[in-house]
């Protein structure tokens, strides 16, 4: 059964001048932890706002828990939890006051649904008298999640919850989402960090208002059959430029200390590349075939989508 269903949604801003979402379709199953992965400006926030009834699409339909986002606006507002991209709680209210306030706004009490937030709340409880504006990024995030959960929503929308948070808090946050998933809450989460894709059941890669692919991380990567080489050397910048200038090079991008290279001829002519680099007097060159990761795949899909236009 699908919990979120999006059919051919298109949304523009400024009277049609800016295309934010271009004919998007997507299904999220009940109880799924679904990741919407793409850079800033891809249209993630617009999609979230349409699903949470804050914006109305130009074209297409969408339902959340079987309810139409336009016709059943008030019913949807009762059953969804939403954490906007920007920290959106009252900075001049304490943790406790924020939580109580939002519980009341959603016609419930903290006690009633405490079981849902308990294991998150205990982490911030020692600071419950502290004003929200004075909390660290990680703590703000936990508080925002508690507030979004307090009315026991059926579907949880988290818009870039891990942006601007350090790796430790990010990991803790994803661990919390795993536990919420076990309780049967459907979660749609967006992130610009490709590495977080591995924490989702399924992901949609989104770029410039278009969905590049929807599947499990493994399937998306396994569809990428490009033969990829990792090339390392001492003079990083010269190496990068020389590989790009090489006639057989299709793409070459820096990946940390390595360069990920796709040759037009696949892996057959690796020896030619290493000879070419030796001729250019590169030292310490190492070339090895590697499995593509999510970023390689995203780049490939991005390029394909751009070429298709």
């Amino acid at each position: 059964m699908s919990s979120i269903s999006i059919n051919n949604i298109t949304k523009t801003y400024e009277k049609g001048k800016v295309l934010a979402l271009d004919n998007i379709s997507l299904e999220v199953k009940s109880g799924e932890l679904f990741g919407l992965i793409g850079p800033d400006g891809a249209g993630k926030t617009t999609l979230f706002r349409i699903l949470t009834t804050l914006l109305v699409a130009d074209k297409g339909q969408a339902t959340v828990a079987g309810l139409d986002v336009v016709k059943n606006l008030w019913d949807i507002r009762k059953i969804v939890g939403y954490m906007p991209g920007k920290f959106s709680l009252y900075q001049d209210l304490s943790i406790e006051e924020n939580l109580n306030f939002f519980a009341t706004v959603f016609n419930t009490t903290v006690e009633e649904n405490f079981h849902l937030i308990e294991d998150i709340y205990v982490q911030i409880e020692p600071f419950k008298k502290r004003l929200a504006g004075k909390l660290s990024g990680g703590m703000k995030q936990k508080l925002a999640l508690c507030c979004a959960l307090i009315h026991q929503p059926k579907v949880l929308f988290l818009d870039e919850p891990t942006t601007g948070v350090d790796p430790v808090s990010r990991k803790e946050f994803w661990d919390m989402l795993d536990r919420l998933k076990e309780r049967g809450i459907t979660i749609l989460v967006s992130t610009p960090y490709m590495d977080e894709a591995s924490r989702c059941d399924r992901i949609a890669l989104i770029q410039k208002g278009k969905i590049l692919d929807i599947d499990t991380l493994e399937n998306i990567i396994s569809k990428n059959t490009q033969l990829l080489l990792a090339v390392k050397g001492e003079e990083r910048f010269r190496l990068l430029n020389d590989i790009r200038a090489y006639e057989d090079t299709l793409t070459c991008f820096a990946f940390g200390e390595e360069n990920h290279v796709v040759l037009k001829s696949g892996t057959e002519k690796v020896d030619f590349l290493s000879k070419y680099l030796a001729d250019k007097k590169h030292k310490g060159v190492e070339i090895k075939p590697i499995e593509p990761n999510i970023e390689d795949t995203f780049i490939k899909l991005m390029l394909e989508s751009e070429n298709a236009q």
Partner: protein
Amino acid sequence: MMSEIVIHTENLTRRFGDFVAVKNISFDVKAGEIFGFLGANGAGKTTAMKILCGLLSPTSGVASVAGFDVYKENEQIKENIGYMSQKFSLYENLTVRENITFFGGIYGIDRKSLKIKSEELIQRLSLGSEADKLVGSLPLGWKQKISFSVAILHNPKVVFLDEPTGGVDPITRRQFWDMIYEASAKGITVFVTTHYMDEAEYCDRVSIMVDGAIAAMGKPSELKKQFEVDNMDGVFLQLARGAKRSE
């Protein structure tokens, strides 16, 4: 030339009352090096960077940037560094060209060479007609590239980058790092503060701050080997778990 030391600190400490924001940190960064300065929120990164930019005086210890002392020669330091942050970089309601002219003027580039430099830059970034559009209307990736170019327009010895590439698509991010490599190949030292560990992988060398002190320093590959993990996230997680303070 590669061996010239551009940033030097020795037992650098900064207190705010009883709170020791930066605790005895010592490191050297060479000319043209890309140095990653990592740490969780509140680990002391920002304070240390403010000291190095000449905006804040240390409580004790030694520090010099581009050969100038942070205690006495703040003004000279400011002339010899560039700065770019994701939060503040360009004026959104000025055009690209106006931004370049403005920031070039601030750094005392004379009008004639500023004009030449600005045309060069617009060409190099292949901005074309976009150069006369308001910065606010450009995509994030472009803004980042332009603001980096503006930050190094006056040929500083060091450029400080504060979380420069958060939130952009993988291709744009790599184009950005291409620019950083190019600057570094020209001999500009690049000092990157960030808590995005995948940015750290691109640095020549990184230091990781925990509770105001430097907990680890080295090449990303060495650190990964030392901590027996396959990415910088893993290194960071192991170090930061022991952290006592959060913001």
